[in-house]
């Protein structure tokens, strides 16, 4: 029996998000569009895999992302690729920019711990109580003396931030970092 598509997709496609993000960030200068390109590539790969699962999933993912970027450039007739023609960058062999690296279980755990450490103290504790101590949302709310709505918000944000932090360890410029800090402080002042 064939493995369910969703679990295949997580293991063979989503597992490459870190390297995909570093590729996209390198070749696509408008950074705020990088998550759109990533999600569109995921959607196309998923739809293709519904018909037939690709033999080389990672190469297929990168090729799909590259096609999406080329499409965008053609459609908009703009040069958004960093110096050099689009082809110089986009035709680089995928295996050259993303050598296959086997990530061990221990490295995975260390990455998870790093991502978790970047959450705010309250968010960390909420995720900890819910996912590690396996308390219900209500119990977490009681333990922490917070409203259940607040707990839910921390859980939602925590899931999104963990997804982001675990896979997107790409350097960026200072201004964006400042923006994160600014919003974080604004929230703490509430």
């Amino acid at each position, binding site marked *: 029996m064939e493995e369910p598509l969703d679990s295949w997709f997580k293991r063979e496609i989503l597992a490459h998000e870190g390297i995909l993000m570093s590729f996209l960030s390198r070749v696509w200068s408008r950074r705020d569009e990088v998550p*759109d390109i990533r*999600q569109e590539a995921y959607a196309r790969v*998923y739809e293709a895999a519904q018909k037939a699962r690709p033999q080389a999933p990672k190469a297929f993912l990168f090729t799909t992302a590259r096609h999406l970027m080329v499409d*965008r450039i053609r459609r908009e007739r703009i040069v958004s690729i960093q110096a050099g023609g689009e082809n110089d960058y986009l035709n680089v062999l995928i295996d050259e920019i993303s050598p296959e690296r086997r990530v061990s279980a221990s490295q995975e755990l260390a990455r*998870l711990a790093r991502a978790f450490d970047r959450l705010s103290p309250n968010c960390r504790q909420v995720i900890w109580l819910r996912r590690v101590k396996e308390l219900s949302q209500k119990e977490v709310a009681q333990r922490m003396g917070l409203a259940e709505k607040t707990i839910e918000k921390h859980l939602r944000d925590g899931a999104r931030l963990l997804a982001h932090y675990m896979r997107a360890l790409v350097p960026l410029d*200072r201004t964006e970092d400042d*923006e*994160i800090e600014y919003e974080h402080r604004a929230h703490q002042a509430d």
Partner: protein
Amino acid sequence: MNTERTKRIDAAASAWLIRRDSESWSSVDQAGLEEWLNASTLNRVAYLRLELAWQDAARLKALGAGVPGDQPPSPGHWNLTPFFEPQPIPSEAVMPPDARPVYRERHSSKYPKMPRGLLSCARATNA
């Protein structure tokens, strides 16, 4: 271009994920989730992506064994040593209080831009 749409889908996906994980989840909710997932492959892949992160978060249990009380270990103070076989660490000092694990150095000031609106959980690591 579709930046706002991507953020909107991501926010909706996280709301479904957390609701499904709650005690009040019903078959009506399940039908609603399936309808939402089937409405667009963009919805589905956003959901799967967060679900994977959420499943990964449960693996913190492997690091939480023996941590008492309600509080997780302080940032950086994880006992990762059982998972790194080759270098034995002196038993009296598994993690001195002021130890900075190696990884925090790599983990400097620069990270990709965070979608706006979900920063209540973001922590400024390098103020």
